[in-house]
C-alpha cells in the first residue's frame, strides 16, 4: 500500500489548483455564468493546452492514460472553484464512451477533437420516467431503409444545449426495462429533427431537454443491443468525478465557514467561540475527512480493477452524498442570512453540493446498490 502522490500527480494537481486560484475566482465564475454559453471557451482552450482534456484517454488513443486517482485529483481542485466547464459531459462521459465502445474510425474521428478542445459532446441517457434506472430506456432506434433513426425524449442532458455531437442511449430491442436491447448512437446535435430546450441548472451547469423525431444517426457506437455495461461503467466514472468535486467543494465550504465564524461577532464575541457551533464545525470537518477517505478508497479500487468497481463507487457516492448534505446545510446555517445571498460563494457551493447528491443516483440509491453487490 502506498498513499503518496507521484511527481506527475503532484504536477497536475498543482496546475489545476493554480488555475482555480488565479483564474477562476468567484467574480470570474459569475461572469462566465452570465455569458450566453454559460461556460468559457477560453478556459476550455486552456484545459486543452494544459493537457487536462487528454487525461482520461489511453496513450494509444493519444491521451495521458490517467488513472481514476488522477481524475479525482483534478476534479477535487475543480470542486474548489465550482468549475462549470463541461469536463464531465464531454471528456469523461462522451469521450469516455467513444474510447470504451468506439471502433478505430470513431476514435480517430472524435478523440483528437475532444482532446484539442474543438468538439463539445454530451451523453443523453436519462428519460423522464427512468429516474436512476439506466436500463429503463424508452427512446427507440428503428431501422428505416436500413438506417437507424431515433425517436424519443431525453432529460436534463448535461452540456446538451452546447454539444456538437450527442451520444444517445436508445432501445433497439426488448421492452422498456430490459437490460438487453440498449444501444448507443452518435447523433448530430444540430440536425433539424433534434429539438433542444436548453437551460442552466441551479448549480450553474448547462443542460437541456432533448427530443428526437426520426432523427438519423452518425453511426452505432459499440455493438448492437449490449451497451448497458459500457453505460454503467461510464456513469460510474462520471460519478467518481462528481464525488471528487464534492470533496473539493466541501473543503471550501468548511474553510469559508471557519473564516466567517472567526470574524463574525454576535453578543460581543466571535460566533466561533460558541462551543455548540465549534462542535458542529468539527462535525463538518469529520464529514469532509471521511468523504476524502472514501473517495480515495473508491478511486484506488477502481484503478485496481481496470477502472470499474461498482460496489466501491456506490459506497463513495453514498457516503459523500451524506457528507455533502450535512456540510452544505451547516455552512448556510452557521453563516446565517448572509449565507443565503447570491453575492457570496457559500450559497453556490451549497447548491452544487445539493445537485451532486441527486446526480447519477441519490445517496439512498447508491447505498442500496452497495448492499446488493
Amino acid at each position: 500500500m502506498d498513499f503518496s502522490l507521484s511527481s506527475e500527480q503532484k504536477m497536475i494537481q498543482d496546475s489545476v489548483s493554480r488555475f482555480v486560484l488565479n483564474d477562476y475566482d468567484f467574480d470570474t465564475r459569475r461572469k462566465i455564468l452570465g455569458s450566453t454559453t454559460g461556460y468559457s471557451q477560453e478556459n476550455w482552450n486552456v484545459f486543452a493546452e494544459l493537457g487536462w482534456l487528454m487525461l482520461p484517454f489511453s496513450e494509444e488513443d493519444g491521451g495521458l492514460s490517467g488513472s481514476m486517482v488522477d481524475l479525482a485529483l483534478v476534479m477535487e481542485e475543480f470542486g474548489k472553484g465550482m468549475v462549470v466547464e463541461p469536463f464531465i459531459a464531454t471528456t469523461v462521459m462522451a469521450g469516455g464512451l467513444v474510447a470504451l465502445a468506439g471502433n478505430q474510425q470513431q476514435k480517430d474521428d472524435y478523440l483528437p477533437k475532444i482532446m484539442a478542445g474543438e468538439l463539445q459532446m454530451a451523453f443523453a441517457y436519462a428519460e423522464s420516467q427512468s429516474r436512476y434506472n439506466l436500463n429503463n430506456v424508452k427512446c427507440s432506434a428503428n431501422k428505416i431503409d436500413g438506417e437507424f433513426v431515433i425517436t424519443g425524449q431525453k432529460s436534463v442532458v448535461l452540456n446538451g444545449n452546447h454539444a456538437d455531437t450527442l451520444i444517445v442511449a436508445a432501445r433497439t430491442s426488448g421492452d422498456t426495462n430490459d437490460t438487453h436491447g440498449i444501444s448507443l448512437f452518435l447523433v448530430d446535435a444540430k440536425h433539424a429533427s433534434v429539438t433542444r430546450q436548453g437551460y442552466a441548472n441551479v448549480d450553474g451547469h448547462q443542460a437541456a431537454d432533448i427530443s428526437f423525431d426520426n432523427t438519423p444517426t452518425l453511426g452505432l457506437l459499440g455493438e448492437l443491443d449490449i451497451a448497458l455495461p459500457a453505460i454503467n461503467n461510464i456513469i460510474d466514472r462520471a460519478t467518481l468525478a462528481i464525488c471528487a468535486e464534492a470533496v473539493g467543494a466541501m473543503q471550501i465550504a468548511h474553510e469559508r465557514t471557519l473564516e466567517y465564524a472567526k470574524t463574525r461577532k454576535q453578543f460581543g464575541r466571535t460566533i466561533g467561540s460558541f462551543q455548540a457551533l465549534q462542535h458542529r464545525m468539527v462535525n463538518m470537518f469529520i464529514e469532509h475527512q471521511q468523504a476524502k477517505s472514501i473517495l480515495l478508497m473508491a478511486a484506488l479500487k477502481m484503478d485496481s480493477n481496470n477502472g470499474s468497481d461498482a460496489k466501491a463507487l456506490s459506497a463513495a457516492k453514498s457516503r459523500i452524498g451524506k457528507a455533502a448534505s450535512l456540510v452544505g446545510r451547516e455552512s448556510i446555517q452557521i453563516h446565517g442570512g448572509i449565507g443565503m445571498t447570491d453575492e457570496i460563494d457559500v450559497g453556490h457551493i451549497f447548491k452544487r453540493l445539493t445537485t451532486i447528491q441527486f446526480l447519477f443516483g441519490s445517496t439512498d440509491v447508491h447505498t442500496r446498490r452497495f448492499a446488493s453487490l
Partner: protein
Amino acid sequence: MNSNFTAEEKDFQQEVQQFLQEKLPKETARKTKSALHLSKEECVEWQKILHKQGWAATNWPLEHGGTGWTQTQKYIFANECAKAGGPDVIPFGLKMVAPIIYTFGNEEQKQRFLPDILASNVWWCQGYSETGAGSDLAGVRTTAVKDGDEYVVNGTKTWTTLGQHADWIFCLVRTGPPSAKNQEAISFLLINMHDPKIKVSPIITIDGRHEVNEVHFDEVRVPANNLIGTEGQGWTYAKVLLTHERTGIARVAISKDRLVQLKELVATSPNGEDKLMDDVIFAQKIANVEIDLLALEYTELRTLSAISTGQAPGPESSILKIVGTQIIQAIDELYVEAAGYYSMPFVPYQFYDDYDGAQIGPDMATNSSLRYFNNRKTSIYGGSNEIQTNIISKAVLGL
C-alpha cells in the same frame, strides 16, 4: 380529555370550507399550493376578502376587530386554509406590528394605524435586523436622534422581507447614547416608507429570488408621535411578541398538506419499472417525517391548550420553531429527492403566465430545489434555531 370536535366546531369547519371554496381565488390557491410567489395584488386581494368575512385578524382581540376565535377554531381555520391553498396573511402588519400597537400604542396611534392594517390598505415591513445585529438583535446601531418634534433616523436595516412593497416599516432604533445599555437604549418607531430619503435595495437569494431587501435611512425625519410607548422600551415590546410569534411559525397545517401532496405525487411518479412509492426506503423516510409532524401537531395543541386555559406560551414554544422548521426542511428535501434529475433545471420562468415554451419536468418538480434553497431561511429567521435552543436551555432547563 378528548380530541374530537364538538358539533359547533364541526359547523365552523364546514363554514370555513365553504368560504374557501367560494371566495378563494383559484389562481391564488394554485400558486400557494405550488409555493409560487404571489404578487402584491394577489396578497392584498385575498386579505381584503378575509377582512370582508371578518377573518383577517385571527389573533386580535374582539374589541379591535379580531375574530375572538378559540384555539380550536384557529386550528380548524389553519388546517382548512392549508388544504385549500389559502395563503397565509403577510404577517408584518396583521400579526406583528398590530399587536404591538394595540398593546403598547396610545389611542391616537390605534386610531391612525389599526383600521388600515385590518383592511389591508397599507403594507408593512419589519426593520429589526442589521448587518451587525442578526441573532443579537439588541445590538442595533440604527440611530434615532430627537430633534424637536421629530426623530432623525440614520442607519441600515437588512433582511427586510417584501420591503419593496411596503408603505410603512416598524423599526428597532437606538435612541440612547452608544454607551447606554442595550435594554435601555432601544426604542420602537414606525416610519413611512415613502420618505424619499429611504432607499430600498434588493438582496437576491440563492433561489434567484428578490424577497428580502436592505433599507437605508439617511437623515430621515420621523414625527415623534410615531414612537410606540416610551423611549428605551422598544426591546421589551419586541420581546413580548416573540414567544407569541413562535406558535404560528411551526406551520404544522401547511406541512401536513405538503405531505399529503407528496404522497399523492410519489404514488404516481415513475421510478424505472416501479412507482416511487414502492421504494421502501423512500416510503420510510416520508413516514418518519409524517410521524414527527404528528408529534409536533400535538405539541402545538398542548401549547395552545395551555394558552386557552390562561397560561402564556412559555419558552417551551421555542420547540415549535425548532421542530417546525426541521420538518419544513425535511419535506423540502423529500420533494427534491422525488424530483430526481428534474430538481436541477433552474427554470422559474416557466411558471410565469407569459411562458409559452414546453414544460420542463413533471408538474412542479423544478420548483423543488428552489423551495429547498429558500426554506433554509426558516431555521435562520425569527430567532435562529440556535437562539431558540439557547432560550430553552436557559429559561426551561435552567442551564
